[in-house]
């Protein structure tokens, strides 16, 4: 049996752990650059605060209802997430961390009472880090996802839903539409509706062969998984990424070529760092900018080929800066830029080309040293000068909470 555990309104819940004064108060968290509302706690949802809408459109409403608004504090969320995964991992055998706030667990074969164990998981995380969670337990990943959804949406389940009998499985399947199923997107769901398949139960009863013919082998597996036949295994080692994207919206529009080049230099450097984290190399990338021209959104991009496979920040950044200089539009407001590294290969086994140059040993050692320094003393301790010093276009995080668990000067205080 598998369990899926996820944090309730994870980001918003993280914000209240060290703020007892916020208990019972509405909280929302904004995306990068304070752009959109990306998390709402129960109280904020009850007020009717919409999800994934621009913050500026609702600023007045949020102020009027005294909603507490926070910028994304990834340092805090990352630390709370790591703690949550460690607690869960210590209670079972295998786990697959699926995202910052959810985790699949394989329950031990000695587990007698699944529902009671689900409660134990939930209680442990709440007690030890103050994070409320919901737990879905079922024989397959797809079903445990759906059980988790049921645990969240159906209050009388008390946050834990176990699908260990056909009766319970059917009961839940009949209550959800195909769109609620893991791996079924809007388009597949619409086509299923045309075939008269509306609920998760309808899909479970469909012929796997027919579904495979109409859709794909992935959708066929979904049907099998809904019937309790496990097709998706726990992935304990994440696959190396095929592409690495690093892009941001600016806190203000950029009209200046030098500033834009600085921004792209920084994103390229960060992308190269991520590439080294997965021990990969690249030889091509896409550099893009978004701008407004004659009142319309424009996106311009340029594909850059490098002479050799590399993960050297200097090489990647220099090429990206050159490319963005070429696609820059004089006099127009640029509001976003980014770098996508393509055609990634693993550094080992190295492909040896007799006639093409390789990344030098010197470059590799330099990058390893830069990474070691930044790991020890914090990100951006050492960086390329080409991104500028103290730029004015960086992320706006005006309502950032303290890094309560990762910085000495930000520790929570207790009155004595």
């Amino acid at each position: 049996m598998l369990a899926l555990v996820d944090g309730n309104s994870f980001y918003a819940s993280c914000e209240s752990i060290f703020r007892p004064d916020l208990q019972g108060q509405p909280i929302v968290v904004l995306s990068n650059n304070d752009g959109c509302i990306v998390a709402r706690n129960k109280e904020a949802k009850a007020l009717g605060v919409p999800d994934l809408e621009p913050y500026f459109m609702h600023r007045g409403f949020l102020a009027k209802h005294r909603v507490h608004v926070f910028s994304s504090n990834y340092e805090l969320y990352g630390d709370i997430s790591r703690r949550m995964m460690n607690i869960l991992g210590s209670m079972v055998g295998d786990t697959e961390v699926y995202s910052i706030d959810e985790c699949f667990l394989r329950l031990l074969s000695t587990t007698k009472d699944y529902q009671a164990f689900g409660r134990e998981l939930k209680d442990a995380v709440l007690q030890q880090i103050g994070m409320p969670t919901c737990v879905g337990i079922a024989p397959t990943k797809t079903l445990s996802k759906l059980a988790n959804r049921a645990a969240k949406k159906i209050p009388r389940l008390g946050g834990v839903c176990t699908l260990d009998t056909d009766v319970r499985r059917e009961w839940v399947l009949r209550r959800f539409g195909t769109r609620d199923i893991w791996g079924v997107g809007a388009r597949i769901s619409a086509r299923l509706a045309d075939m008269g398949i509306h609920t998760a139960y309808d899909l479970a009863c469909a012929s796997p062969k027919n579904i495979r013919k109409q859709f794909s082998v992935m959708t066929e597996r979904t049907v099998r998984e809904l019937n309790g036949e496990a097709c998706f295994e726990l992935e304990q080692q994440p696959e190396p990424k095929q592409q690495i994207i690093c892009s941001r919206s600016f806190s203000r529009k950029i009209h200046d070529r030098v500033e834009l080049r600085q921004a792209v230099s920084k994103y390229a450097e960060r992308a190269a760092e991520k590439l080294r984290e997965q021990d990969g190399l690249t030889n091509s990338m896409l550099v893009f900018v978004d701008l407004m021209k004659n009142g319309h959104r424009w996106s311009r991009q340029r594909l850059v080929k490098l002479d050799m496979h590399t993960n050297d920040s200097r090489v990647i950044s220099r090429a990206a800066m050159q490319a963005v200089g070429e696609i820059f539009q004089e006099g127009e407001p640029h509001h976003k830029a980014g770098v996508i590294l393509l055609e990634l290969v693993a550094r080992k086994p190295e492909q040896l080309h007799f006639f093409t140059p390789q990344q030098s040993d010197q470059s590799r050692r330099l990058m390893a040293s830069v990474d070691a320094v930044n790991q020890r003393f914090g990100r951006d301790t050492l960086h390329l000068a080409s991104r500028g010093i103290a730029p004015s276009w960086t992320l706006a995080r005006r309502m950032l909470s303290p890094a309560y668990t990762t910085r000495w000067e930000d520790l929570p205080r207790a009155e004595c």
Partner: protein
Amino acid sequence: MYCSLVDDVTLAGTTVIHIPLYSSTVPAGFPSPADDYVEDALDLNGYLVKRPSATFMVRAHGTSMIEAGIQDKALLIVDRSIKPRHGDIVIAALDGRFTCKRLDLRRRALCSTNPGAEPIVISEGDELQIFGVVVHVVNTLCSHS
């Protein structure tokens, strides 16, 4: 000799402060007899933090707990996985703020260690919210270190 101190807060046990028991430069040809006894380095994280995932650090402000050894600005190491018992020093949420007091379960009260201070009695209707139990306190004694 080496002694490395790490100044970032890491509770997962990933940052280990190594203070070697013995360490000596070895003259060529004759090894130090003490080197055979170098077994392990002392790890303060391991000593102070039993359950890294459930342990949080809190900064004390004020002197009402000085009899319990908690000075102003002391670092409190708080374990949330422990069920609080009568007499434990706890971090409690009181009027929306964290406060550090001795837990008196018999009187349902939070007590300062100052002999003069009145205990704060939690009335029957109110929920007593405990953030965690203070397991260690780190007071800084030498300010010019």
